[in-house]
């Protein structure tokens, strides 16, 4: 106990010294630095908040009530929610083993595989939809999946999930890889000397330590999938009650000249996104990347 007390004393003294020198709350240069970084946070948050407030001020309550009561909005909300969460779950199912493999193993073509993983991020969204449409309608394999196996994707709800998966899974994979990169391999080695198999060291050490990064990737994936628009229009279409999602509903309402209705749906989307992100963060613990 004496030993620990002395060491704690040394540490607390060191901590105090560090605080007095480097803490962002003391010393004029530290304060200026902190103020500068916080300035950018304030500017960005203010701009986003102003945009949302402008929308809120523009619409009247009646439009919001009508939106909440409309059956087709409820349908498209449900389709948006279930497809985006399904796409996120499937993305994570791929992202965890893929992130681990890309982080830990060296294999021929690794650089190419690593690059291809990022490709959908830089694809223009319309191109992604077009690519999927060409694959399923113009190629032998695509036709065989659709007709031979009976897995219909084109203009089907399943197609929405596929589209979202194709466009947003890269975020989950990239985040998972970065998270596993940050986990020291030595910890897994030690776990193996303590009785773990390779799977055990992954399950008990690497995965829990990479958890925050994986959750952050999941959030990005879901956000991207939830707000997806362009590729869905091309590949899944906008069939009311079937393949219509909130983003396509906004587009359709705008096309029909119902600006207030479109804005009310947009605010509904923002509200759902805000609540979902906060819940995921609270449940998933501290996210390191976001």
């Amino acid at each position, binding site marked *: 106990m004496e*030993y620990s007390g002395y060491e704690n004393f040394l540490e607390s003294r060191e901590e105090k010294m560090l605080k007095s020198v480097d803490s962002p709350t003391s010393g004029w240069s530290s304060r200026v630095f902190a103020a500068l970084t916080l300035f950018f946070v304030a500017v960005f948050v203010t701009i986003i908040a102003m945009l949302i407030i402008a929308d809120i001020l523009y619409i009247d309550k009646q439009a919001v009530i009508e939106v909440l009561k409309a059956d087709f909005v409820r349908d498209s909300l449900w389709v948006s929610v279930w497809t985006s969460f399904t796409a996120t779950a499937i993305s994570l199912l791929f992202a965890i083993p893929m992130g681990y493999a890309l982080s830990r193993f060296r294999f021929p073509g690794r650089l190419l595989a690593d690059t291809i993983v990022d490709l959908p991020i830089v694809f223009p969204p319309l191109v992604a939809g077009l690519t999927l449409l060409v694959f399923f309608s113009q190629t032998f394999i695509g036709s065989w999946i659709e007709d031979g196996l009976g897995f219909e994707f084109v203009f089907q709800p399943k197609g929405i999930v596929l589209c979202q998966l194709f466009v947003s899974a890269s975020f989950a994979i990239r985040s998972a890889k970065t998270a596993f990169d940050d986990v020291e391999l030595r*910890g897994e*080695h030690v776990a*193996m000397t*303590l009785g773990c*198999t390779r799977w055990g060291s992954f399950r008990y050490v690497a995965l829990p330590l990479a958890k925050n990064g994986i959750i952050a990737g999941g959030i990005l994936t879901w956000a991207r999938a939830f707000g997806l628009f362009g590729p869905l229009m091309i590949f899944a279409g906008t069939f009311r009650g079937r393949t219509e999602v909130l983003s396509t509903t906004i587009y359709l309402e705008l096309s029909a000249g119902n600006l207030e209705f479109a804005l009310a749906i947009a605010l509904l989307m923002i509200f759902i996104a805000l609540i979902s992100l906060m819940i995921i963060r609270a449940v998933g613990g501290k996210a390191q990347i976001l």
Partner: protein
Amino acid sequence: MIHAKNLNFSIGDFRLRNVDIKVEKGKYFVLLGPAGSGKSIFLECLCGIRRVEKGSIFIDGRIVTNLEPRQRNIGYVPQDYALFKHLSVEDNITFALKVKGQSKSKRNEAAEGIAEVLGIKHLLKRRIAGLSGGEKQRVALGRALVAKPSVLLMDEPVCALDEARRQEICALLRKISDDLNLTVIHVSHNIEEAFSVADGAAIISEGQLQQTGTLNKLLREPANEYVARFMRCNNIFSCKALEPAPRGATKVEFCDGTLVVGSKVNGFAKLMVRPENVEVYNINEGGGGLGINAAEACVLEWRDFGSYVRLQLDGQSSLVAHVSYSTFKRLNLERSSNRVIVRLRPDSFYVFPEIHT
């Protein structure tokens, strides 16, 4: 008992070449070497983290060369401890037991027992993030010991600690090894650390073992110049045997003069004198006069290391001497002309086994 028999392993340009180390049951062995010499890689080969290319590893008579790390019954403490930051101290310590499927109550009992021995019982519920270096070291040790390994392998276990903690942990490690009759291989670059714990030691350089034996042997009878220099002796000279001298001694030619060496020397040889065996006298007091193997020298530099004072001497050859502080005071260096008398007793010479012709 652990026996690494002619281990060979290569990674990039680095090669571990025919490393052969045997440590008997319950003995504490220290593998010494500078950074990049292959100490850690050797340990990882013993753990099974790296697969050896040639050679065999025996633990308690069982060949484990191709077994998985988990099948070798070893405890491993890496240099950075690699504690599991997502788990509490208790869960870190009982990790091996959880993997083996032991019940929570048994795990708690084991954790308390081992924490008691290591003096960290009060930390069991704490997270890893708030621990000091010494506390982390003890947790890593507890985690390695909980599964009762046959051999404990430790990579620079105390290098991140201050001197006081280092001594304390070294004493604890030695006690644990003795109490549990545990075979230990401890990797280090620090000679003092080795002296405080080791039964036996070896020196490795560039993937090759230079010498194995007791620390006393490494210190006073080094196999080669490298070992001598690693054991902090730079007083190494080339000489040529001239003629036999009385009582088995040899007169040798050294620089422009002669020396009497207390043992037999043939042809060309290399000699070593440990710095603590170099006798230094005040020039006015003499040292029995300029007798056998004595000469005047100039003290170029001196530095007080607390337990001894290091003198850099320049006479017939460059020489380092370690003298006590009282001897240093007697030399009166700051007031005199820094001239002293240096004497090398014939029996203080060590003749290297390699003979250069």
